[in-house]
């Protein structure tokens, strides 16, 4: 069906052509590019008053102190015993928490500083553009916890991001060392990134959280919700753990075949879920949507004022086209009969419907793709070169 795509152009792509001629013109090109780049960038950096890739940071200093509720005398357990060793209780004592020094509870006396425990202070930084920094600078009162300062680490970040963007874009010209560097960084960073996201958003809360909730709450996720059935959850968590180890056993020299068990489990569950899901959502819903009336009427108001039904020509044409399209494309997918004779003609109509659908889908996505490149250029021009 798609032999149509074999166009007449010669098989050898441009990259072959690029490789044949002697190396000299290529290195000349790279040298010229480098010189133009450095001269251009330095000119741009000096000519612009506020310079290139300038980033600022909104820095807020945050402080927390450990407090506990001032327990009324009636409680028999004397607070002194508890205060002696703040880490004594297995899970953090509900009555003890970290609050800001100017917390209302402290002022009102219902909360009391736990002596002997140092306050913890740290800074949160939020990177902003130069324009936003100007805006914020007017709103911030000096001396308060919030201040604005230039942030070299973020400016460096813009430089790194811009260079990596250019390295990847260079692949459009041809495969080159710059692209290979960017590719290697991307593979290394992304593999580790997804491992970390997987660890902190799945393994810690769901696996370790079920197997050792106390430990996780103590050292990693204090607000881990208590499960209604801890025993059952822990037992159930062993299943994925076991399957995981079976999978990892493939790394071992012998007995790697065991990894077929977890794979069978995954394929089985996928088949089960998708079988019913596909029939319910894709098959039945689309069948209902395909059952269109071939003759469509429009509710309208006649001259005399009472509602009458008028024949809707274009609506009917649309429905007929829809139903014919559905049936002819289904015929195209028919496997039992060769595409010859009546079936062949209907299938041909089906292919036409498919081609129009694909042409339309292709046209619709062009805008999205162009937006993406547009955004990268905007980043280079505004954030980096500050044009």
């Amino acid at each position, binding site marked *: 069906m798609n032999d149509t795509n074999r166009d007449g152009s*010669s098989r050898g792509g441009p990259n072959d052509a690029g490789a044949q001629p002697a190396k000299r013109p290529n290195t000349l090109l790279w040298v010229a590019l480098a010189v133009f780049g450095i001269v251009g960038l330095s000119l741009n950096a000096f000519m612009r008053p506020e310079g290139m890739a300038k980033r600022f940071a909104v820095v807020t200093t945050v402080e927390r102190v450990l407090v506990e509720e001032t327990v009324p005398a009636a409680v028999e357990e004397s607070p002194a015993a508890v205060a002696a060793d703040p880490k004594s209780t297995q899970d953090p004592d509900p009555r003890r928490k970290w609050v800001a020094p100017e917390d209302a509870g402290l002022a009102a006396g219902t909360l009391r500083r736990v002596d002997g425990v140092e306050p913890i202070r740290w800074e949160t930084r939020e990177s902003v553009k130069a324009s936003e920094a100007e805006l914020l600078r007017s709103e911030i009162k000096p001396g308060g916890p919030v201040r604005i300062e230039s942030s070299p680490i973020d400016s460096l970040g813009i430089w790194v991001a811009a260079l990596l963007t250019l390295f990847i874009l260079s692949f459009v010209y041809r495969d080159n060392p710059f692209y290979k560097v960017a590719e290697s960084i991307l593979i290394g960073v992304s593999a580790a990134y997804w491992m970390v996201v997987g660890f902190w958003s799945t393994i810690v809360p769901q696996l370790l959280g079920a197997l050792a909730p106390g430990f996780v709450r103590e050292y990693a996720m204090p607000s881990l*919700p208590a499960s209604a059935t801890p025993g059952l959850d822990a037992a159930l968590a062993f299943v994925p753990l076991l399957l995981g180890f079976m999978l990892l056993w493939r790394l071992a020299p012998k007995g790697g075949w065991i990894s077929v068990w977890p794979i069978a489990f995954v394929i089985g569950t996928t088949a089960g879920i998708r079988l019913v899901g596909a029939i319910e959502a894709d098959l039945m*819903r689309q069948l209902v949507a395909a059952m269109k009336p071939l003759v469509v009427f429009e509710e309208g108001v006649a001259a005399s004022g009472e509602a009458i039904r008028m024949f809707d020509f274009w609506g009917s044409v649309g429905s007929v086209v829809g139903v014919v399209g559905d049936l002819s494309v289904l015929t195209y997918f028919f496997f039992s009969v060769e595409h010859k004779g009546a079936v062949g003609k209907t299938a041909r109509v089906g292919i036409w419907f498919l081609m129009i659908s694909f042409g339309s889908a292709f046209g619709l996505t062009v805008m*999205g793709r162009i*937006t993406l490149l547009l955004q990268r250029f905007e980043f280079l*021009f505004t954030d980096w070169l500050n044009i």
Partner: protein
Amino acid sequence: MTTKNTEQTPDGMRGFFVRLGRLDRRWIFLAMGLSIAVPILLKLRFPEVPGPMARATFDSIESLPDGSRVLLSFDFDPASKAELQPMANALVHHCASKGHKIVFMALWPLGKQMADQAIKEVLLEYHGDKYEYGTDYVQLGFKAGNEGVIKVLTTNVAEAYPTDASGAAASGLPLIADVRDLGSFDLVSTVSAGYPGAKEWVQYGRESMKPEARLTSGSTGVQASQLFPYYPAQLNGLLVAVKGAAEYETLVTEKYPVDRNSERLEQGRIRMGPQLVAHLLMIALIVLGNIAMIASRGTQGGAR
């Protein structure tokens, strides 16, 4: 740069087009690069005429009584931020201008950052005084599990999101304390770039929503072709790519204008300028490609 060609090439006009047919694709890349970079620097912009789908999305939110509870799901990541962030910003501004109570969530791990950006750039910027965390808006953040999360939401929201993004227990937040399942929302809107996204919300979320509740979606151009069958029956509103964003932006900012840094709600329209030049290039490429084919068909006696 041009490929060596072994066949003999007729000279004159036809020869030009035959050589054009075998043009090195890197000239095309250069042409596309210029057709986008140059218009940005010249800041070209054109008027937008809102289409039926953008209007349907606008009406879905506008017709809800003020202060209804809406769920916004950010199912995209920085890779498609260019297309979808303008829609997300306009959506948040529209819901906030109507005083709707907004619950943010994300099915994509990086979606949480996209939601945070919309909250910072639009919600707190223009509606900061009227919107207080916990009672007027909540950020539930990312939850792994793709459509599994939606399925859990259909039966028990508290189980899918025991805590909000910052770890505070969900029962402590008044806005979602009594939320049981998707039935408690008057509107669910997903800004979606692929899987999991709008299709999964239609497949697994739609049934358990209230019949009169609305489900709308913003989507990339690519995914739109897959969502058309669901519009308007299952999807009450659909915004397609930057054009949908530009149209919806026009409708929202006409009804609810903003006084300062308005470009945050004009990203769609700003990006439509270079689109025109690039689209004209694409059209020219199709035409030239075909002329070249017809020209070369003459010399080789029929296309291979």
